[in-house]
Structure formats: C-alpha cells, structure tokens
C-alpha cells in the first residue's frame, strides 16, 4: 500500500539531482579555494605562468558557482 502511494520515480529524481548537484557545487567550491590558494603560492614563489593558469581555474570555478546560483533563482521563479 505504502509503495503504491509514493511516486518513487519522482522521489528518485529528487534524490539523484540533490546528490549530483550538491556534491558538484561543493567540489567546484573547494577547487576554487584550492586553486586560488595555489595561485597565491605560485605568485609568491615567482612562478607567474602557473599563477595565471591557476587564477584562470579559480575564475572558471567561481563562474560555475555563479551559474548555479542563477540556475537556482531561475528554478525558484518557475
């Protein structure tokens, strides 16, 4: 009876979206922090090329997070 009442397909969709996007946001956030710190270290060590590359990774990660925020606001408006 319980199994018939619950829409397991929708529930599963909510779970895997939560797991995939939740973990994705956290990993991208951590990568942004790690690359930004490594960029600082590289700049301090005089490795300008590595610093710029790592800075680029940071920017990409931050843009991805900003995209997630915009997507979230879009979902709220639907």
């Amino acid at each position, binding site marked *: 009876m319980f199994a018939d009442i*619950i829409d397991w397909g929708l*529930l599963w969709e909510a779970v895997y979206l939560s797991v995939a996007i939740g973990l994705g946001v956290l*990993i991208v956030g951590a990568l942004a922090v*790690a690359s930004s710190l490594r960029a600082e270290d590289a700049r301090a060590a005089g490795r300008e090329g590595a610093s710029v590359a790592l800075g680029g990774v940071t920017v990409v990660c931050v843009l991805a997070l900003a995209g997630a925020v915009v997507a979230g606001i879009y*979902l709220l408006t639907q």
Partner: protein
Amino acid sequence: MSRRTAGHASRSGPACEHAVDADRRARRSDITCRRVSGADIILVLVVVTALGFDFTNGFHDTANAMATTIATGALKPKVAVTIAAVLNFIGAFISLEVAATVASGIVDPGAITPTVVLGGLIGAIAWNLGTWWFGLPSSSSHALIGGMIGATLVASGSGAVEGEGILSKVIAPAVLAPIVAGLVAALGVFLVYRIIRRFVIERAERQFRWGQVASSSMVALAHGTNDAQKTMGVISLALIANGNIAGGDDFAVPTWVIVSCATAIALGTYTGGWRIIKTLGTKVVEVRPPQGFGSEAVAATVILASSHVGYPLSTTQVVSGAVTGSGVGRPGAAVNWSVAGRIVIGWLLTLPAAACTAGVMYEIIDLLGNGAGGAIVVCAILAVACFLLWRANKAHAVAPEETISEHAAFGEAPPRPAVVAV
C-alpha cells in the same frame, strides 16, 4: 471617470454643491446600513492571526539560512538577519504557485471554513512559539499542516482528512529529505576537506567566507519563496470562503495579501530567533566555514531539486540534516547527538502536537457557537499566552552575541553579555 462623477463634473454652482451633498449623504447612509457581520470579524481575526503566524515563521526559521554564517563569524548577527529579512521579502514576490495550492491534497477543501483555518493557525503558532522557547528548529510548514489537519478532524471528522496525501506529500519527504541532505553534506564536506588538506586550515577557511554568504542567501531566498506563500494561501482561502475574492479559474492572490505576508515574514526574520540560531549554529556541532558553506549549499540544492519535481519540503529539516551531516563529514568534528536527538523528537511531535492544539482551539470556538465570540476568545487566549512568553523571555533572553561560536573563524567572538533579545 464613472458616469456619476462625470455628471457632477458637468454641473456648476449651487446645483453642483447640492448634488455632491446628496451623494455624500447617500454614501454615509450606505456605510451605516452595512453592519459588520460575525463573518467579517472572523475574517479579520484570521488575517491578523495568519500574519502573526507568518511573523513567527520568520523568526523561527532565521536560523535555517544564517545560523552557520553567524556561528563562524562570516557575517555579524545583525547584518546576517538583515540580509535574510531582505531576501525573504524579495522571495515572497518571486512566485505565487504554492499560494494557490496550500493544504490541497491534505484536507478536503470543502471542509475548510474560516474558523477551521483560525483553529489551525493558532495550533501552528502555539507549536512554533513552544519550540522556539526550547530552541528547537522544528518545521513551521509541518506545524501549519498539522494545525489544519487537527482543526479539520475535529470539525468534519476523519473522512475530510486525506491520509494518502499526507503520507505522500508530507511524511515521505519529511523522512527522506533530512537523511539525503545529511548524507550528501557528510560526503561533500569530507571531499572538501580532502581537497584543501594540503593548505594551512585557517588560511583555507578564510576563502570560504563568500561561499558561505552566497549559499546562505540562496536558502533565505528559497525560504521566502516557499513559506510566505503558505500564509498567502491561507488568507486567500479565508477571503474566498467569505466571498471577498473569486476562487477557481479567476483566482488571483490580492496584492495587499502578497505585500503584507512578505512584510510579516521579513519582520519576523529580522527579529532573529536567537535561541534556535544558537542551537543550530553552536550546539549540534562546532561549525567551521567549509562546513557552513557545505551544509547551506547542500540544503539549497536539496530544496530546489525537490521543488523542481514538486515535493514540498521543510527548509528547517533539510538545513538541520545538512548541518549534522557536515559535522559527520569534517575530520575531527564531534556531533552532539543528544541535541540532534532532541531536534528529531521535535520533528516527530510537530504534526500531532500542532494538530491537538488546533483541535482544542476549534472545539472551544465550536462550543461558543462557532461564531465571532468563540474566535475572539481563542485569539484572546493566544494573545495572553504570547504576552506571558514575552515576559518570561525577558528574564532568560539569548543575546545575538551568544550565537557566535567561541572559536569563530572570522573576527573575535565577543564576551557573553546579558542582553535582552529574542
């Protein structure tokens, strides 16, 4: 310009003055003849009580968005609650979908009368205030649903309560959502600490500040969008029942309802329920910035993913689950399982306790003739209870400064003052 006004405008001199006087007398007579009915009084009480519930919803749930941000010192307490209040206000205007569907599928819409709504609201407010006093982050949405179920059960019997709807729309998501949020937060925060393990932890933590602010803000916005609408729905139901607005296809939430609900929830949020903020931010687990970012980001994701597939969720339960999970995921963190257990007991009691209180309140209204007299009596009981709680709170208040962790990552945790605040 109306025909009558146009007629006046075309006249001039004494004739015009005479016509205007006659018009004023007619209007005055209309106002005098239209006596205020018992239904009007009940409607006013429902609207005021609904806005009161919205206010308690705001200050009860400020912790959801800002407890971790305040605990780590990423934002000062007053700045955090101001941001949360503004975002709750904005969130209330973003979408009106939930407002049209409140309580549908849970109780029979035909059984809902203004006095049932009033009983339900009072049950929900009583539970919100009780859990706030004990610093328990319980679900305001479940309190409202429980209140509506209890009042409907007493008014129309069990046939008016839709058991399947409660199981699929309330119970199943309520069980699953905090578990999913907790597991994702535990795994996510564990991975975050793995990625940043090569760096000095204090240096890495500083970088998470803006991530914390952004993720908390998303939770505040989602809260405003979801929770303010529930009160809009309740007020709209009462207005339809009283014949003030049209239901069905012509249904539209009046602008004054949207603005007043948004204002009530924002004011409640700004008041900042410091007791619950303290529990969630400092008592479940000591929150560090990567955890704060992790728990709020996961909570926002779970809420949005569930909304996307149409599952209404309790923001409180999702955030509490995520904060606890983030404590499990951080190496070396110790979750206070006794506090977590108390919170879960609060969740289990929310629906039945709010239902019982609402049922008793409806019974009182019914005993007094199911009219304005009974409604005034139960509102007076609520007002007296609120006053007594307010007086008791003055003696045992939690100050905003007490909600900052003793090991806050940003700034310094100030000494604990004996300041009066809610």
